[in-house]
């Protein structure tokens, strides 16, 4: 009682549906949901601020070696930016990450495609892919060091290995899942095997591949840090080791936070690429949101 649930009136006068049956240029009725529902970011920001304040207060009371506090970390950040150490380390990390990821992408899509298209290839490679996918790549680092030394090559290989499997497995799944009905369509128009691949099988696999890419990004970041820990110390992972050995806890947080930012950026980039490359999935994504 007393709550007016009738929809607020909107002016539709003079507006005609366009060819697709939709009327454009309308302002939807104002939602009567609560402030927080309409502004979800307010809660997120408040939550982060509260943790930062609590950390600041509690961290100052502790020995700074155990847990630094936000203001000290901010100071360390400024210092590492000024002396160029952070930039240099970030670039080193990015180099291994980008090259390694590119290799994983090209080889992963290639092998996944061949496995999906040719049964002989999938039967031949399947045992190795399954076994290696389930092997923690850290366990293979000593071997990689033996074969490729401690330099950039070893790091690139470790990144590639980490990112490779989600890409190869998803590409395989996408190619394999291509509907026979769609293949029949292009066959009925006289498509060659090559045209079947380029016009049906590959586009059909793109959403699968992009889902694999998103997984692979996360694994690649883990891979690069692990590589920097265990091979020649360099990059952001190297900074973590250096500062922790020096008990410079405030500085230690700087590469860690940079890695978080890097991971977030790369994941958003992958999501953006996914949206660009699979526009026909947009309404599916909107429904899932």
């Amino acid at each position, binding site marked *: 009682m007393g709550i007016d649930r009738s929809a607020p009136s909107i002016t539709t006068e003079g507006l005609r549906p366009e060819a*697709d049956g939709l009327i454009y240029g309308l302002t939807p009725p104002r939602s009567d949901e609560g402030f927080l529902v309409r502004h979800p970011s307010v809660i997120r920001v408040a939550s982060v601020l509260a943790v930062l304040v609590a950390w600041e207060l509690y961290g100052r009371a502790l020995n700074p070696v155990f847990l630094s506090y936000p203001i000290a970390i901010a100071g360390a950040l400024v210092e590492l930016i000024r002396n160029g150490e952070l930039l240099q380390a970030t670039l080193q990390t990015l180099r291994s990450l980008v090259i390694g990821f590119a290799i994983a992408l090209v080889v992963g899509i290639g092998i996944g495609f061949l496995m999906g298209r040719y049964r002989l290839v999938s039967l031949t490679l399947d045992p190795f892919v399954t076994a290696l996918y389930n092997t923690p790549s850290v366990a293979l680092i000593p071997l990689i060091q033996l074969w490729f030394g401690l330099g950039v090559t070893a790091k690139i290989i470790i990144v590639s290995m980490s990112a490779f499997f989600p890409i190869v497995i998803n590409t395989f799944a996408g190619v394999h899942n291509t509907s026979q*009905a*769609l293949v*029949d369509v292009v066959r*009925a*128009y*006289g498509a060659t095997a090559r045209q079947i691949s380029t*016009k049906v099988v590959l586009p059909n696999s793109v959403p699968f591949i992009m889902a694999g890419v998103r997984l692979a990004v996360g694994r690649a970041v883990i891979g690069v840090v692990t590589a920097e820990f265990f091979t020649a110390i360099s990059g952001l992972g190297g900074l973590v080791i250096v500062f922790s050995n020096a008990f410079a806890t405030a500085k230690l947080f700087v590469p860690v936070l940079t890695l978080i930012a890097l991971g977030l950026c790369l994941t958003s980039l992958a999501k953006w690429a996914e949206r660009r490359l699979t526009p*026909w999935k947009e*309404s599916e994504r909107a429904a899932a949101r």
Partner: protein
Amino acid sequence: MTGVVALEVRNVRKLFFQPSPRGPAGLLVLDDVSFSVREGEFVSALGPSGCGKTTLARIIVGLETAVAGSVMIDNRPAGPPGPDRCLVFQHYALLPWRTVLGNVELAMEIQGIPKPERRERARRYVELVGLTGFETHYPHQLSGGMQQRTGLARALAAEPRMLIMDEPFGALDAQMRTLLQDELLRICEAMRVTVLFVTHSIDEAVYLSDRILVFSARPGRPVAELTVDLPHPRGQETTRSSHRFIEIRKAVSDVLAERTDYYRGDRQIGAVHHD
């Protein structure tokens, strides 16, 4: 109607291998199928579900190979699938990652027609099937009727010698069905296309066709042939209520009752369109 024979099917047999308790066995789906379609003619293949009509359509298009017999297009053996005979699929089979325009261009892309001409022709056929304004929509944004219009435009845009339509309106609701039937008749008259139309609906076959081939249940084989002499242009109201329509409908129905098991068994078909 006399004219050049566009399609001739001669003694086609088809069987599928399947497991059985006594080892692999052959399921005979088409047995000694022979008929011909003249240029510009609209012929329906009518028969109960499972009589091999779809398989026949796929053999004519070249997606399946017969174990015996031959398919001739313009008195030459039909080679591998090609744009000379285009199939319109029951479930539309549009590529979900392509827009309406992109889907309509598909056959022309495979033919290797240069892009500017492809675009221009695609737009023309999109207009022909009444989809202007929807060129950049993706299939999932369209109703079933619009999806099949796209499928029809895709086949027509290849400018084939003939259209093979495999229960193209089977998955549509009754209203869409009648709407698209009229569109199809209009397009056929405007473009003088030769059509082989597979259906299990008596009404649809009588309304659309110049001639109906009635197929027996499995193994499928034409058991009767009826000429539909209803005048053109046809219209849902006038044609369906005409005396002649009802007569022909009755004749087809009698043949089906007599010669096939269309009205028997647990799979009653006709007015029911299950999907």
